[in-house]
């Protein structure tokens, strides 16, 4: 599969502080990768280097084989940071999008058309001509994502895309990212389980790459009744014939098959999906991996 973004032996220091060291990472076309780690792990640093606004001290960052800081590479990339600045507050949302669209070679007409289309997608079309200063934080974040997509890049670099916004805005952005899966290469820096669960791969970062794994989802099944022994699953007895059964999402179908084939009065009361381990930081992941190679410690 063609490689969209590649970090080759990348190191970046800010004075005496090493932000990232000897990073080697390939992201394939159409893949969604979540960068997870504690604050200061280097997630934003990697995204900035891929966006071409930060040069590595060692190594290379390539976008489709071209160094990321070159103009030719930047055509492919849409970039979004978690700051709530980065748009002009005293002009309209549409004017903002037209401005940034023309930086990527769109004509005024194309930029207006594309801008209106994106504002519609992100539920901002009724406020297209309003000053951005009148927007809520959530609306600004959606506008910033629209800005990143103006030139229809094949690679999106999103730094905490739903950070600090309301539920409706968050769901809108998550839904949009979900729709882009497979057609765009997305690298997301995230602390949010709902963002992380969209990823095909989670990269745990703490200056170096700690581990790379699929986004891990856990299903918790609440059952009530008479539960016979069930091997291979973690079971928590809540008392009063009520149990919580934990399974990885790839074991869910098998669990359901076994539960439904049981005799007796066992009722499935509730289900809950969580993203395990991704809710924690990379330091925990480091300890887990050292202690239990190849397996996971349950939340």
């Amino acid at each position, binding site marked *: 599969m063609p490689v969209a973004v590649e970090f080759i032996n990348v190191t*970046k220091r*800010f004075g005496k502080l090493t932000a990232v060291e000897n990073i080697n990472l390939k992201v394939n076309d159409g893949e969604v990768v979540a960068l997870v780690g504690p604050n200061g792990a280097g997630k934003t*640093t990697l995204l*900035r280097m891929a*966006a*071409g*606004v*930060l*040069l590595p*001290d060692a190594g290379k960052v390539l976008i489709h084989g071209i160094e990321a*800081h070159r*103009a*030719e*590479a*930047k*055509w492919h*990339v849409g*970039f979004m*940071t978690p*700051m709530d*600045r*980065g*748009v*002009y*507050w*005293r*002009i309209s949302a549409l*004017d903002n999008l*037209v*401005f*940034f669209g*023309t*930086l*990527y*070679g*769109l*004509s*005024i007409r194309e*930029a207006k058309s594309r801008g209106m289309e994106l504002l519609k997608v992100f539920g901002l079309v009724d406020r297209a001509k309003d*000053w951005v200063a009148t927007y809520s934080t959530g609306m600004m974040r959606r506008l910033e994502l629209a*800005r990143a997509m103006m030139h229809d890049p094949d690679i999106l670099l999103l730094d905490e895309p739903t950070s600090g916004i309301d539920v409706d805005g968050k769901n809108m952005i998550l839904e949009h990212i979900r729709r882009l899966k497979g057609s765009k290469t997305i690298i997301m820096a995230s602390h949010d389980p709902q963002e992380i669960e969209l990823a095909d791969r989670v990269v745990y970062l703490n200056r170096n790459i700690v581990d790379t794994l699929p986004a891990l989802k856990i299903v918790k099944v609440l059952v009530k009744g008479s539960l016979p022994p069930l091997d291979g699953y973690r079971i928590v007895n809540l008392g009063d014939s009520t149990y919580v059964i934990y399974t990885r999402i790839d074991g869910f179908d098998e669990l359901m098959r076994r539960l439904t084939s049981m005799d007796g009065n066992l009722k499935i009361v509730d289900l809950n999906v969580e993203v395990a381990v991704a809710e924690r930081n990379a330091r925990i992941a480091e300890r887990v991996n050292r202690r239990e190679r190849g397996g996971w410690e349950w939340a």
Partner: protein
Amino acid sequence: MGVIDRLYSFVVIRGFKVWVSYRTQVALNFISWTIPVFLYYFIGLTFGAGRMAAAIAANYSYTAFATVGIAFQGYFSSAVATLAGRIRNEELIGTLEYQMAAPLKPMSLMFYSTVWGFVVNSISTVTILLIGYGLGIKYIINPLSTFVILLLYMASIIGLNLISGAVVLIVKQGNPVALFTSVATNILGNVVFPISVLPTWLRDISYVLSLTWSLDALRKAMLAGEGLGSMTNDIVILVILSAAYLIIGVLLTNYAFRRILKQGTVHMY
């Protein structure tokens, strides 16, 4: 096609629409452009034509001398501050990083960022010249020489803009270049008095300012209708100064962008 669209974006969207959103500032701008013309008109009236004519050695009034000076010095002082101020604003707003994430070379970004400053200063220049006309100045304009001098002057201004913008990218706070050009225009730039009245050591500094030679030539071209032949000295020196400013500006800009990309300070202010 792309250049025109980007010019529209930088001049109309980023420049004009944001400028007019600050209505009070626009009004203050117009006032600041017009008051100096009246100020020097009345100074001229106070001192009379005789003393100034000896210093100017030309056949136009002090009001005309000062009006042309004020009209065109804006490019030198505020245009320089405009680009530096624009870059500082983009850093504060957070948009500079997104502009640099776009496939625009640093020189192109600086060029587009400069254009609005030229537009605003052109409005002030025309306003001041018109006020001068209303106060009785008789313009005798040689279009060709005026055009050539303006071209060379603008080239030097672009170089100064680049130097100023690069300095702001590096130091973040403060703008020593803008301070220098402000002092230069008020005292050294041949703006409201001829440099012949300055002591020799200050006059030597005036000679390295493109403003000094541009104003000298523009007065000949616009107040006396003189052709290119009578301002050969000014033209040669302007060519040298413009080239020097541009070369230094380009080198400094490339260095500044490389430095902030390496340090990761694009998004900082």
